[in-house]
């Protein structure tokens, strides 16, 4: 698979480390009453869809940036690559 890095251009997926569903960006608020349940869902439960999947890849053997890759889990086709920082900020995170 080739991941089209937003800053570095096309890179071999073997340069990256895979973390998982990009929902991991949305860390729950630890101060809410049902935080234990929320963290259980966050840490352990996954949608695991067959089809389009947004996921976190880390460019370990490159510029060490985290990317959000939108990839089809049936065909491995990659339709979108963004810097995770941009996605996190757009979702309301500080950084």
């Amino acid at each position, binding site marked *: 698979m080739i991941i089209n890095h937003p800053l570095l251009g096309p890179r*071999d*997926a073997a340069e990256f480390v*895979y973390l998982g569903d990009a929902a991991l960006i949305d860390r729950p608020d630890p101060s809410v009453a049902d935080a234990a349940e929320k963290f259980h869902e966050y*840490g*352990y*439960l*996954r949608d695991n869809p067959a089809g389009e*999947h947004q*996921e976190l890849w880390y460019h370990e053997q490159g510029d060490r940036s985290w990317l959000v890759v939108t990839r089809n889990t*049936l065909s491995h086709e990659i339709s979108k690559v963004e810097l995770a920082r941009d996605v996190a900020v757009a979702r309301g995170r500080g950084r």
Partner: protein
Amino acid sequence: MRYSALKILKEGLTGNKGWKPVWREPEPKKEYDVIIIGGGGHGLATAYYLSKVYGVTNVAVLEKGWIGSGNVGRNTTIIRSNYMLPGNQPFYEMSLKLWEGLEQDFNYNAMVSQRSILNLFHSDGQRDAFVRRANAMMLSDAGAELADAAQLRRELPFLDFDNARFPIKGGLYQRRGGTVRHDAVAWGFARGADMNGVDIIQNCEVTGFHIENGVCTGVETNKGPIKANKVASCVAGSSSRVMALAGMRLPIESHVLQAFVTEGLKPTLPGVITFGAGHFYVSQSDKGGLVFGGDIDGYNTYAQCGNLPVVEDVAEGGMAIMPMIGRARLLRSWGGLMDMSMDGSPFIDKTHVEGLFFNGGWCYGGFKATPASGYCYAHLLAKDEPHPNATEMRLDRFISGHIIDEKGQGNQPNLH
């Protein structure tokens, strides 16, 4: 029809005209006591033990393709019971004991071959870890034996003992481990279940559940609705997709694992050998091909085919322990869908929906578990309580904190 030496002789002398298909191809009935979704090893074993041990015979196995088209026919066929944690080891030892009597039990040649499994170690620290594992294995009566490098040099002279990076210091043997002809496992369980009255329905995909007031009353399929008192999912790599139809999110990611086989060679490998410094395992099939594999590809996928970086990694692992493998030509490679769980261990459990049960999360190691998984799942379905050897394989263990993490990797499925 029972198989016996006499029967083979008779058929041989009369032109082999008396062999019949070994299971029926029935149309689904309107209603069953138990519906099992998935005609892989685990689904068929569940049907077999339900009908044989627990006397529940009004059972259907619904398989979307043909039986054995999933992982049960794609794996590298290794069986063993060399786990460490109490939640796992008694279960896998139960499974190995069932393998040992399986062929007599279901009267089918599954080519169970206890040719041993050897886990190599390459450092003092790794030897200590393996000694600890060996002790855990002996506690469950599984048998374990430590071999030093001198012994291995005599037994397996082709290994690269003096590899500069990963010298072989010894290994942990489980002599009772080995390999089994994987397709024959599916066929043997299917035939056994069919003879007890179970309907095996192929080309029947489950597309939805009928759930009323929190109770599951049946399934929707491409062959129409079918009612059941109990519905038991057993679909390995498709677990998340199927259980999503019941509104569930699982602690599972689907990954692909590849396997490889070379051209047929003369007998060279006496048993199964695994590399301790990377992920590589190899055995030789009865046809002579070297069958081997390594890591999963490491990203979510339902594609049943892998990518080249892992092929390279597996080849490097092979070259690091037995350089002679470089002379063998690769014949085929393929992939299968792994239901990788969050702690690397499986689930055999009820769900929040009454009458709906779940079996999955087998990762890359569920073939060896096939008989015990079927047995324990049948127990749960028949008695509504877990089998004593599967009490920890619960879906709620991540919230209760009772995880079964053999490798201590945490909630990162691609590291298990």
